[in-house]
């Protein structure tokens, strides 16, 4: 269980308060009043920050309304028959135009043994330990011995990670640099889909970085492709697949990867 989900855990164990729904309803009902009060009464920097936040929220809201309206509109133009040949019984069906519904034709071309090790980025620039780790020296004992390290690169931290006692904690992986999803490109289809990362399989820099889950350029990660609907030739659903990170996540603020097919 992730460490911060203590409320969910408590609710699983003991259930919700009997008046939970009522309280949620009331809180939601009061929310607009609170917003209105804040908008009228806040002054100075707080007002500025508040207006910025409201502005961003309203943009999101408008976008969502627009998307909803577009979805509801029925296209009057006759459906363009698909380019790929389809049998009669699939012709008049609205195909899932979702880019995620990939064809499995291009999917598992069983590569020969040599190709297994051919990855899009065969070589990466080395990263020194000095660059990777910052020495933490807060507190007297830590300062004296300097054994604590902070990782300065983006990391993937598994869902089931639990922190150890800070006294024994050797590596700190900052919350702000953690990633759970990667934008994965299918090289042959040219389709990019955002997929959850399952694990870090190999960091070419150092086996230690692999175990720490550091995401640098060239790292092989395992991603969850179950929503792509890929099937093996024997008819089983594929759900985990490897991808190689193709950008510098620490510079870009996102993880881009190429699927290894």
């Amino acid at each position, binding site marked *: 269980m992730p460490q911060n989900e203590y409320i969910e855990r408590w609710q699983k164990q003991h259930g919700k308060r009997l008046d939970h729904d009522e309280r949620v309803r009331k809180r939601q009902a009061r929310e607009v009043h609170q917003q209105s009060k804040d908008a009228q009464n806040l002054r100075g920097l707080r007002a500025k920050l508040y207006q910025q936040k409201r502005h961003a929220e309203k943009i999101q809201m408008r976008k969502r309304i627009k998307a909803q309206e577009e979805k509801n509109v029925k296209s009057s133009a006759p459906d363009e*028959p698909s380019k*790929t*040949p*389809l*049998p*009669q*019984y*699939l*012709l*008049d069906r609205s195909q899932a135009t979702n880019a995620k519904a990939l*064809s*499995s*034709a291009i999917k598992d071309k069983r590569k020969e043994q040599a190709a297994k090790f051919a990855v899009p980025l065969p070589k990466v620039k080395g990263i020194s330990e000095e660059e990777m780790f910052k020495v933490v020296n807060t507190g007297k004992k830590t300062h004296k011995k300097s054994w604590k390290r902070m990782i300065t690169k983006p990391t993937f931290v598994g869902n089931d990670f639990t922190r150890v006692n800070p006294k024994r904690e050797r590596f700190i992986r900052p919350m702000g640099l953690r990633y759970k999803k990667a934008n994965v490109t299918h090289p042959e289809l040219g389709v990019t889909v955002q997929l959850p990362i399952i694990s870090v399989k190999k960091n070419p820099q150092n086996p230690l970085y692999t175990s720490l889950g550091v995401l640098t350029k060239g790292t092989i990660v395992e991603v969850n492709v179950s929503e792509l*609907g890929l*099937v093996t*030739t*024997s*008819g*089983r*659903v594929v759900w985990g697949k490897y991808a190689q990170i193709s950008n510098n996540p620490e510079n870009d603020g996102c993880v881009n990867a190429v699927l290894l097919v």
Partner: protein
Amino acid sequence: MSTLLPPPTKRQKTEIAEKARLQQEIESIPDNLGSVRVQFFDQATGSATGPAVSVPVADANIKNLETLLNTLQGNEDDERVPYRFTYQSQDKDNQTIDILADLYHSLLQPGLRTTEDTISLYFTPQAVFRVKAVSRCAASIAGHGEAILATAFSPVSSSTMVTGSGDSTARVWDCDTGTPLHTLKGHTSWVLAVAYSPNGAIIATGSMDNSVRLWDAKKGQSLGGPLKGHAKWITGLAWEPYHVQETGRPRLASASKDSTVRIWDVVSKRIDIVLSGHKGSVTCVRWGGMGKIYTASHDKTIKVWDAKQGTLIQTLQAHAHRVNHLALSTDFVLRTAYHDHTKKVPETDADKVVAARKRFEQAATVNNKIVERLVSASDDFTMYLWEPESSNKPVARLLGHQKEVNHVTFSPDMAYIASAGFDNHVKLWNGRDGKFITTFRGHVGAVYQCCFSADSRLLVSSSKDTTLKVWNVRTGKLSMDLPGHKDEVFAVDWSPDGEKVGSGGKDKAVRIWRN
């Protein structure tokens, strides 16, 4: 303190379960029940066969009943016929029960009948031949440049097959050697439907370019130009059954997206009749053996037409969404006409017609009446079983699928209905009353088509998950898994003589499977 044994591990538990499953106690029949009187009736005519016979309960299993019935009918040793027995109660509810293994477990133990009564058993002959489950890929033939959209075996034998493809050609294959025979070029767009004429001489293809073309099946040459008339693409083809054809003037029905069905005179290449009346795309057309044409459409209705005059006889309404597919109980005999498992072809044309009619009547006769049942699959997740001859109302509603039902077939002996749905399941239903029998689970993608073997004991289904699966109808279990296609399998057909299965799909390769 006594030692507490640890709870059994998972491995131990599975071992115990496996053992229990294998060593299931043999269901024995008590031998103190004496005998029971059995009266046999022919399911086709409803007439009694021989006098009521007294049979010891302990020995009253299917095998012995078969032997008894064969003796009663005076069949020689070399012409013994396997039978299926059903029991029909005389009460108001009029339920029918299949005798699965023996009389004791089917009738006496549940208390439906006692040993005091005379049990009337209705028998139907089963196929005297047995089709083996296909188990390996005999050939994977490349040739088509695009996905394969339709496939059909020749009614004559399993050695030729035709496939229609997205590369706007149809190809005829020699399935014995796994080589291409002919390429049928002429269409300008995808070939969506292919159909062999019942005598196997002509191939008809329907295409996205709104035309139908006819080809000589032997030589692979075009018979005249395209048959033009439809305003939109062709969705289905149906040949006039052999025994109702006028001599030398076979006809062909083509269903189209433009909501009409056109009946073509194959010899003069002209439109004979246009059946218009549907308000939406016609998805499926079937030509019945009693001179009726059945059409299903996106406008939620099924219409029954007279094939002679082209007049509308009935409109069957019950579905709540578009109707995807139709199957006739006599589909198999109509498709194969006079070709039966003995592979003896009558000499003259007149004999052929007689043989085809005889086969049709033999298959369709129930209680001295020729009955043609119809089952329709729809997007409203249900199917309906109809008997258009007797009523406008459906016989039964077949509920159970959880997504659109794409394809439905009758087994050649008319005892079962199989339906393939987008909910990854194939379901099996009783062909007589539409009762649910079993679900074949195993596919992990939408199931597109399914096809019975000629002896109705096996079923093959093709799916989006790139596999074909062969199911055993009797046990309801997977008989064979056939992986091999690299992408979705759009079309599958089991040859009428049961030797081979042909399939094709998005990976552009035709595969031929055999045992």
